[in-house]
């Protein structure tokens, strides 16, 4: 079962993603901030990360750049409520999605990047 790391400071969102993605057939790990995400990533070695941008402590921008240094090939999907794209280089992520209660698009993107 492919492992996905969901990084979001909002618990409700983490929960929603975990339930939805689990249902879609993935094993879901969760982190509430950047530091935790790095730790979980090195332990769990996920195949894909979804990263929120606005987080306390290490935010999504810093996290993505650190992840890229450590695991160059790890697909990252940025999921945000806000428009942060200007803060990323084009290299930063494999997809950039606006958060929506309808996770159809997210799931489609994950499937596209890593399969089921």
């Amino acid at each position, binding site marked *: 079962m492919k492992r996905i790391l969901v990084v979001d400071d909002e618990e409700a*969102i983490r929960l929603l993603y975990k339930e939805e993605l689990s249902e879609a057939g993935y094993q879901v790990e969760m982190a509430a901030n950047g530091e935790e995400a790095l730790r979980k990533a090195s332990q769990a070695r996920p195949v894909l990360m979804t990263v929120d941008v606005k987080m306390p402590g290490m935010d999504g921008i810093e996290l993505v750049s650190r992840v890229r240094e450590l695991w160059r090939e790890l*697909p990252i999907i940025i999921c945000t*409520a806000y*428009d942060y794209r200007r803060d990323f280089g084009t290299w930063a992520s494999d997809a950039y999605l606006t958060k929506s*209660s309808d996770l159809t698009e997210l799931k489609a993107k994950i499937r*596209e990047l890593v399969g089921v």
Partner: protein
Amino acid sequence: MSLSSPTLDQLPDLPTLYRAAQAFTASLDLTEVAAAAARIPAAALGARSAVVRLLDLPTEALRVEARFEEGGESVAAAIDEAVAGLTLREGKPLLLTDLAADARLAPLGAAPGTAGLAAPLVYQGRPLGALCLFRGGPPNPAPPFTEADLRLLAALASHAAVGLANAQQFHTAKHRAAELEALREISQAVVGRLELPAVLEAVVAGGMRLLQSEHAQIVLWDEGTHSLRYGAALGPEAERVRQQTFTLGRGVNGMVALTRKPMIVDDYARSPHALAEFTDVQATITIPVLFGDRLLGVLHSHTTDPVRRFTQDDLRLMTLLATQAAIAIENARLFEEAEQLAEAHLLRLKQIAILNEIGNAMQGTMHLDALLQVILTGVTFGGGLGFNRAILLLLDETTGVLRARLGVGPASGEEAAQVWHTLTSPTRRLSEVIAERAGQQRPGDQSAFDQMVRKLEIPLDQEDSMLAQAVREGRPFRVVRGSQPPPGQSECVLLDVDEFAAVPLLAKGKMLGALMVDNKYNGKPITDADLELLAVFANQAGLAVEHARVYTRLEDAHREIQRSHHQLVRQERLAALGEMAAHVVHEIRNPLVAIGGFARRLARRLEGREPEGVYAQVIGREVDRLERIVQDVRGMSREMHMHLIETDLHELIQECLVLVAERIALQGVALRIELCPQTPRLLLDPVRIKQAILNLLGNALEAMPEGGTLQLATQVVGKNGAEGEAGGASGETVRDASPGRRRREPGTYRLAPGEWVILSVRDTGGGIPPEIEEQVFQPFFTTKEVGTGLGLTLVRRIAGVHGGRVEMENRPGQGVTFRLWLPAPESTGPAGAIPPQGGAP
């Protein structure tokens, strides 16, 4: 001492000499002195007759100055003239014992036994004439004169010569003085006048006075027409002269004008220059009037007196008069020219004043229609250019047609009379008339003439139109009915006039149109001066028209700027609002996502369970709505950060369709997708474009709640961007990407610069009422019961930041089609510069 008898004999009779000398110098009157010079020698020498003949210098004739005859006895004039000539020629006194026996005199028929005695009259070596004495012959025989008589006569003659010379000189001096006085007076009279007729009359009067003649005339030479014409005449024949025609070379006047030499004719009837009609003329004198070497005319006098002859003296005086006359005539001419020039200047000044006044009125009028009215009022107003009617035509540059914009003028003769009565009153100024007419001017308040002419349209290439020709050639024309080849004749008929003029309206070399004028009602001919003034005016009017046009454009530009300014202010306000809203919506988005997400989960789990399942669906749907609102409001914030990536538009469309697939199915909408065979890759911000497409799809679906057909199509069009409804390769300008050409990789198509991709979204939702068509792109305008009213505003904004646009085609009662135009990248550039996104990883 004593003197010998012969010596004594030879001495003249001293007392006689003394008395004679006293008598000869007692008077300065030539006649008196001459009479004494004849009488005293005759008495002293016992002569029966004596003659004093004086030499007339120019002719060398020996004129009888005095004749003394005792008892009526005399020799014939021919004989005494011959004797006088003889003694003058010989230069010494002559003793003629018998005239009949003298071979030189006998042929003259002198009576036998007539004795003669003659002596030349010489003063200081200058011969003055001769003194001749005669006696004897039948019926009073007498002895011949002696040598002593001869000596006495010689002495008497030398004394007489002194007296005669004195008297002659005095006479000449007196005559000269009189002449000079007369000349002075005449000169004053002649030169003191400035009007030519007065000058000529003074010259003629002077001529009569100098010649003491009963007639004088002056004929003028016209250099321009090379002909002679009457100048002035005085005397009983003045009227006849006035009606006479003069021809160069004919008659004495004509000859003198031709030869420029004075001429005196003593016997007119026999002169080769005599004219048959002047039967009573005896003698003539004719002098050319020359100014420098330029002929001004001929001064002439004649006499009907059978004995009067014109002398060299007369000639001399008349020549002096002619010189004076020449100066005076020339002055008069200069004066006349100056007067004409002054008059022309005055007229020009008046014209300039008119132009100035119209010009002022034109400058004060910036609106084209009002300006045209001012122009034509200026052309037709009595205090302006004063034409009866005028038409102003403007050139439509795109079609090349002259179109009448305004006509000013009465429609009928009665109206003309009425109008002019009010217009020509001297107290009315042009400015007042213009102001009054401007006040009357209302739409539809057109005169009958105006209404008639406004239908006038003349293609610039119309051969028989003088208006078109005036515009084509850029110069004024005047057309007289029937007098010229075709151009303009049909217009004469059209306007029902015998004459009209057309001038082009130009501004800085640019052709604007034409002015046409006529004098239909008063029939006043259009002069060169009128045409010239009209042309000058047209130049001025052309500039004013051009200025008015520029002004109108400026006004439009100003209005546009104001409009954009208002829009900008409004957009700024919206953006500020969006900014604030963005902060709010960001904060509510995460909770919304969670609420919505779990509601969906609930709905799925509770599917089929009433009513809980429905509740969950309602929550999910409402959250959807809130999320859309949030999305729209986000888009309105001031900054729209663009993230351009080379994107496959078709892939983006597919992603959108995934998101609305459920709704399409729910609403029972039939989906038709017609994508062009190429796969257009564009530089896009995929998130933004997706948002725009979703908004369009959302609108279409909202318009068809009960089902319908949603058509989605793409097409590639060329630079001119012909609109095509359907996608695919249909339509002429749709470029077909041939295989292998421009294809970089299978399935993608790179557009050429200047090409466009049109994405159209068409619904069958009944369209929108035409009256609100304009408003659909306005922010916060909505026909929906739910919605922010920002959807289409956002679509337009997104299209705009991509360099494209959005169009709406409304088919009321049927549906609406939105077309999103997206441009090809400016240059294809290095393809690797921007990593592709959305394609296969």
